[in-house]
């Protein structure tokens, strides 16, 4: 078996490259439909509301609210590199004027986490071409 990275790395086709490149530079972008204005996430081949293929990568606000959260105490169906970060606080975050996304919440005491909590993005590089957004309490 080939040596694996400690955490999974995305493949980067042209469809999703703008997201990873922007995150590498500390920006959060999502596809906005040029026809109906719907923000699509994760990246889609056409707008899931109206079917228009003209989706424009658009800079999003870096703030949102916790829609839901879970505290993972063990690594399952993921790479063992997560072990050192356990417990991992995983959230669904509703980005203001954007869309909903999975993201990790850090720098927070477990007892303080709640649905509706205001959070702010920060970015960590993963490899040369990509970054990953994570969130902290706003």
């Amino acid at each position, binding site marked *: 078996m080939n040596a694996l990275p400690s955490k999974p790395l995305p493949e980067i086709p042209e469809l*999703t490259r703008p997201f990873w490149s922007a995150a590498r530079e500390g920006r959060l972008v999502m596809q906005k439909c040029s026809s109906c204005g719907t923000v699509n996430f994760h990246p889609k081949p056409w707008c899931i509301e109206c079917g228009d293929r003209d989706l424009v990568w658009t800079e999003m606000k870096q703030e949102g609210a916790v829609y839901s959260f879970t505290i993972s105490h063990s690594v399952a169906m993921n790479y063992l590199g997560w072990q050192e970060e356990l417990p991992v606080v995983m959230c669904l975050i509703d980005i203001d004027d954007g869309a909903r996304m999975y993201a990790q919440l850090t720098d927070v005491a477990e007892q303080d986490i709640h649905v509706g909590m205001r959070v702010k993005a920060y970015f960590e590089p993963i490899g040369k071409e990509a970054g990953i957004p994570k969130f902290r309490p706003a």
Partner: protein
Amino acid sequence: MRGNVAIVGYGRTPYSRLKPGEPVLTVDEYIAWAAELALESAGMSKSDFDGQGLGVSHAEVAHTVNWSAATAENLGISPNALIRGDQGGCSATSMLIRAAALIEAGIIDRALIVGADTPLSMPSIAPGLPLSPERTRGVYWDFQGPFGVMGATAQFALVLRRYMHEHDVSPEQLGKVAVTNRYHASLHPGAIYRKPFTLEDYLDSRMLSDPIRLFDCVPIVNGGLAYIVTSAESAKTITDRPVYMLGCGETNNFYCGSRVFPDVTVTGFSQSAPRAMEMAGVEHDDIDFLQPYDDYPFISMMTIEDWGFCKKGDGGKFIEERDLRFDGDFPLSTDGGQLSGGQPGGANGGFMPLVEGVAQLRGEAGDRQVKDASIGAVCGFGGIPYGRPGRSCISIILGSEA
């Protein structure tokens, strides 16, 4: 299509956790074993399916892209129609609907439907990542794994947490589902875990992805299942105990509310169940048991709600107030479900509610037989969409009379 087809035979192989000394069977062997049990149960032979239908569910270990045709080759059956189940936990029920439509159209008269998987024998691309390569590639996975999503339990924990924010449900209420399933498993010789546990045991079980505990999760097993569906006319000549499909409803990629910010606490059963009940012409009080797709106890609870057995948000209270045992006033997962029975791969657990529903309506459920059962509700629930609970939700009403 009401009553146009019936299930006339079914099979469920013993499951394996690959304990030392247990034989390690391939997926093809499990398929053949399950098919053999179904054929025996119907008094049929494989040659009865030449020129007819063969349905094959997806397997994580499928060794070719032509999985249904390759299975026909392995079994030595030459069907006129192949049905491929690729809807995860909805595969078994979706193939029933497809077979019924093919039979209704006169293309075939009968179909053998099989599904097996050996997820415990699958080469893994990473330690702790027991997934076929296809499930770790593509945009869907790229936008989860690297973000730290720890698989199905974390994905479903997010749904449960949101539910807990909007409605009241207690760990004790969810634990009652797990405890009852284990009790039913103690009455099912084929269940993988049969030793009863208590509510305290449930509450003490390790928290995996808060609020989901170890005893909220299904044990993965190797195994296979099969059933035989025929036209109602043929069914009468094959068995004196056909189990008719009275109603069906299917919803895929359901969103409650907007596609961008959906309410994840409502499943597609809210659409598919009313359709199935309307087709069958039955009310809630007519239904003698419910076999949900119990991948987590709270999914059984949300299924109860979305079928309309109680109001949205009252599922926890409903579980607390009703007797969920086979001889109670709301028999639920009478085979022990997947929670205690085992999950033979992500695409084949959905055979279990269907096969148990048929066993109950044929009066073949042994020590866990629901007395005088004549109408039952069974569910398929398949796939995990991004940030939501279930890609496919299928509702089926079965009956011992057409």
